[in-house]
């Protein structure tokens, strides 16, 4: 299991488009992905889950990956966050 802390850096946060991208990437891996914001923990492969996090700009999140390809999964998701989901960064 890998746990990584990460910050939302794109201007509008994890709204529909970035969330869609994130879920799409996550579902390509076999490992489980959980995303935690404060006490809320959601399934990273569920769009409804990710959207209801309402993670705005600056939110700190915890990524928890567990499974055979957890390392690749975490790296891929980190890349998405650091690229700001190809959107404007604030």
């Amino acid at each position: 299991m890998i746990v990584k802390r990460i910050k939302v850096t794109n201007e509008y946060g994890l709204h529909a488009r970035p969330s869609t991208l994130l879920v799409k990437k996550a579902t390509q891996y076999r490992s489980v992905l959980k995303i935690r914001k404060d006490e809320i923990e959601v399934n990273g492969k569920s769009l409804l889950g990710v959207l209801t996090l309402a993670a705005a700009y600056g939110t700190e999140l915890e990524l928890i990956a567990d499974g055979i390809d957890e390392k690749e999964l975490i790296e891929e998701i980190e890349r998405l966050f650091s690229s700001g989901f190809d959107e404007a960064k604030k």
Partner: protein
Amino acid sequence: MKLTGIAVAQGIAIGKSICIDYKFNIINYQITNKETARELKRLEEIISATINELDYFSRKISGNKNQREIIETHKMILEDPEMISNIKTIVKSELVTLEKALDLNLQKIKEQFSEIEDEYFSARIIDYQDVTSRLLKKLNKTETDHENWNEHILVAQEITPSQVLEAFKNNASGLISIHGSRKSHSAILARSLQIPMVMGLSDSEFEICPYEVIVDGREGLVIVSPSKQEKTKYQQELADIKRIIRELSLLADKEAITIDGKVISLLCNIEIPQEINALDKLRIAGIGLFRTEFLYLDRKELPDEEEQYEIYKEVAERFPSKPITIRTFDLGGDKIAKSLQVEEQNPNLGLRGIRLSLKYLDIFKVQLRAILRAAVHGNIKIMFPMVSNVSEIESARKIIRECQVELKSEGLSYQNNIEIGTMIEIPSAALRAKEIALKCDFLSIGTNDLVQYTLAVDRNNDLVAEYYNETDPSVLLLIQMVCQSAHEAGIKVAVCGEMASQEKYTAILLGLGVDELSTSPANYNEIKKKIIQLDTKECHKYAVSLL
């Protein structure tokens, strides 16, 4: 209770109202434990069918990034394992139908979203609403029939054109759309199909359904739970209307020939392709004006060649061997496509009709290519709107030739000998009809604009309504000139403006020498009846007396 809205489609309907919005139409009953498997299977099927449909849309609009992203999000919603398992849990624990479970699931998601303070996020509930209604609509299509629509009055927040068509096929007697305008496609279709319709009520559907209701499409009234007197009064009027319609429908087999034996080509105008469903009972001589603005209005992206080709082809194949005159897009003026927004101080005297087409040649050519290709499948003609001088026709003809050369080199089949005509709706074109007729295979007079431009009266301005006079001698003189010039050149003249649909003008138009009349579908039989009663020599005398 009397409610006032907009009169959209003529006629009266009396009947019990039903609401056809999905949320009131959810099939809801308690299912047994055994039946849950069936509902879960339906869920899987409807999700995979909807995903396929979204994939198809996504390919179709490949150029549009925003829309593609929305579709991508909707697909993600449908593939969401959490949501699917939530819906399954609802079916199994509450023992409800899939439809009801989808609705309950949406309510639950709404609650979740309502807790989000950031409006930017909570607004995304709209995607879940869209997806749910897409699923419910799809389920409805396959699961429910429209049997109970027979003789009923259909009520919805916003009635769609396809619902109007279904209403027609299922013999619904009237339509009430809480929102909407007279110019909407649903309104156009209801008029053509002659289903009484009222739109634009400030009241809610709860006040209208399910009660006995009277729809008065002439006055724009809806009477809920009418009194005995009201009902009797309307029943009598309805009987009169039905008798007239029955008498007129007997004319279907008769030809439009005057007493003195002149055959008048009686054609129809259509604004949207679905209207062809109204023409089956009329035995029309052809379509005298197929407007194409619907392809460009109310949408962001422009229609491509294939889309247009398919639409033109379908209409042509529905009326084999009958002439179908397609008018190239008449945008500008009060009809502006979102993709062609231009700021003009005086749009009616601005870049519109053929002027706009000749300026945006790439868009124009897409349409001409589609028409030329579709013309292989029927008797299609091309007509240009808003022509003001001879050189515009020459330019447009040149573009058609270019398109034909292109299509040939691409190896696509197309019509090489297509009839080309022009609208006469600007006084300068009427005055030069002699020269224009030499460059055309036919002429068609658009009376609405011809009156507006000849008399300098805005036809949508109530303050000058009294100046808008179709029978002003100056207008009639121009129509006569056009007819004479066309006949000297050996070609025919049609009238496709509103004058052709009003029986009080039929005698005048025939008297001035018009060969063909193109009416709205709703007025077709009325005009035919009038023609049969007329003598062209008498008409001529009458028309001349007005000049």
